[in-house]
């Protein structure tokens, strides 16, 4: 049996090895990190049958749970770990050719630390350990956002850093309040005894916690950093940040809210905030001219949708939200990765400069098309099932409020479809834009030739596209895992407080 702690330790060990390798042979570091991620992904898959039987608890330092730290890997944690690992495996493959400057050795290390932070956050069973991994996740994303070192990325990174640090400060205050009240840091232990706290303490802790993680989860008033950060990071990093980082923060937030702060009012607040983020994100995306900013705003919208579904608090809605997380991870990663090479080839971020690009980048254009359809939720694709089940779950939950919010969700979807169709129109236009005719690939052929991305970068993109179309065939096993994750989450919910 594989000890789940190895999922964290192998990438971390590789980070230190990469640092060593970087002194002399920086070109090997990308391969090393790819191997480490592949190994970790394999290990995570071998854990699957066991975790479906019963959650695994990993004791650290030989001391039982409330005294020391433990990791608790249930179906929820493993499902998120798999999303993280599979996405980052494909993205790291894409990075082989996409990241080619002299700092790629450091890139590989930071990339792995981003994964370590996310994995730690979903697996840990200790609230302070959660804070530490949250910091690893945040700091590695600050650095990776600034990777290109131009004005925009530095500004975006500073803004992200200032807001993110305030968020982690609030998280720390919440932990201090909980420890003052209960004298323990283990999440299960706190959950068992949280009733001992006076209500005001509990509300204060909940508020600080929600604001703290909410910054990273990009829920509505706290998401002003996101469009800048996601659009000025390298495209591979944008794919990771949009694909799973915000979702991980969101699910961790919901997990803690479920187990510690199950106030009915908080659930309603989060549902409303989710719909507001959805509308703001989609309407703002509609007005964007810059493709990466558009995708980033669309992520705000999608995260709002997921938050809405998660905070409905019914099992069907939660399962639908998990499916939507998977759909968004695949579709948004594919979109960002495809746009990465479009930006390299045309040298422009403006959507208007991509007129007719689908003729010269046929595969990329088609993948973009598929991913858009899946994100909007067009029938045969994976996204249809997730979005449809969110709407069904919301309507069948019965309350008027949920129905009204569902109407707004549908409005958001219409807006989303509108701006994506506009982009696709540009892509498939006959008259190419100047930037497109001038574009040359590395091989430097003529104006009519293909400027498709290199094959190593196209394979992961095609894998995402294949999942979005063929994922329906896997729907049975994915739903099985999602169902187990829902059970895992709801087992933590003792009772909802009025």
């Amino acid at each position, binding site marked *: 049996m594989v000890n789940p702690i190895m999922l964290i330790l192998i990438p971390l060990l590789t980070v230190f090895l990469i640092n060593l390798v970087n002194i002399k042979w920086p070109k090997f570091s990308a391969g090393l990190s790819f191997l480490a991620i592949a190994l970790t992904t394999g290990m995570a898959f071998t854990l699957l049958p066991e975790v479906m039987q019963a959650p695994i608890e990993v004791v650290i330092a030989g001391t039982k749970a409330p005294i020391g730290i433990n990791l608790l890997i249930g179906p929820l944690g493993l499902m998120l770990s798999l999303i993280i690992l599979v996405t980052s495996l494909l993205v790291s493959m894409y990075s082989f050719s996409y990241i080619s400057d002299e700092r790629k050795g450091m890139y590989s290390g930071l990339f792995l630390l981003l994964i370590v932070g996310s994995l730690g956050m979903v697996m840990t069973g200790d609230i302070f350990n959660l804070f530490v991994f949250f910091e690893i996740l945040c700091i590695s994303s600050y650095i990776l956002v*600034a990777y290109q070192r131009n004005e925009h990325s530095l*500004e975006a990174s500073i803004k992200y*850093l200032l807001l993110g640090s305030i968020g982690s400060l609030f998280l720390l205050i919440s932990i201090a309040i909980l420890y003052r009240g209960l004298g323990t840091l283990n999440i299960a232990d706190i959950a068992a005894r949280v009733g001992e706290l006076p209500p005001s303490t509990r509300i204060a802790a909940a508020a600080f916690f929600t604001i703290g993680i909410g910054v990273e989860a990009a829920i509505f008033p706290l998401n002003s950093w996101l469009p800048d950060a996601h659009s000025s990071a390298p495209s591979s990093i944008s794919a990771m940040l949009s694909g799973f980082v915000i979702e991980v923060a969101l699910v961790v937030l919901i997990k803690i809210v479920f187990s510690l702060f199950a106030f009915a009012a908080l659930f309603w607040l989060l549902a409303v905030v989710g719909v507001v983020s959805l509308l703001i994100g989609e309407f703002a995306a509609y007005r964007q001219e810059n493709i990466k900013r558009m995708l980033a705003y669309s992520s705000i919208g999608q995260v709002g949708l997921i938050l809405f579904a998660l905070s409905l608090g019914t099992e069907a809605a939660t399962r639908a939200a998990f499916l939507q997380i998977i759909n968004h991870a695949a579709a948004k990663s594919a979109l960002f990765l495809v746009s990465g090479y479009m930006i390299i080839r045309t040298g422009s971020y403006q959507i208007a400069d991509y007129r007719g690009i689908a003729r010269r980048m046929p595969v990329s254009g088609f993948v973009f098309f598929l991913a858009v359809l899946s994100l909007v939720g067009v029938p045969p694709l994976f996204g249809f099932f997730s979005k449809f089940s969110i709407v069904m779950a919301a309507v069948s939950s019965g309350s008027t409020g949920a129905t009204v919010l569902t109407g707004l969700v549908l409005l958001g979807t219409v807006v989303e479809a509108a701006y994506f169709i506009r982009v696709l129109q540009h892509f498939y236009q006959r008259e190419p834009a100047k930037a497109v005719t001038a574009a040359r690939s590395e091989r430097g052929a003529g104006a009519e030739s293909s400027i498709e991305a290199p094959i190593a970068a196209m394979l992961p993109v095609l894998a995402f596209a294949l999942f979005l179309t063929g994922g329906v065939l896997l729907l049975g096993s994915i739903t099985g895992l999602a169902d187990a994750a829902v059970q895992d989450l709801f087992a933590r919910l003792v009772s909802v407080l009025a």
Partner: protein
Amino acid sequence: MMIPLSIHTILNIGSFGLLVIGLAIIFTKRNLITMVIGLNVADVGANILLVNAGFVKDGTAPIFTTAVGSAQAMSDPVPQALVLTSIVIGFGITALALALIVKLYRRRTTLDVSKIRGLKW
């Protein structure tokens, strides 16, 4: 209402005051470096709050020496360990923030947030 002014209470209120002051510095100052200073001040507040969560009345330092027996109560060691972690993490963030700011200054030659378009919020 008469508030019992024990050490614990003083520290709780004071640390919250530091947090508020730190956040006020971040939100009112326009110089990026001063904003990071505000972050540090707020961090000190949070650390005092956290150490205080393990405060024990008349407790001694949680270190066993030959002089003091175990007769007297010791402070809770766990929050102190947490604060060590949080201080180091705070330093890491500060160092990174300053590096980013210096790098940005080389591009923009200003530290004033209101003059940097991307930083308006």
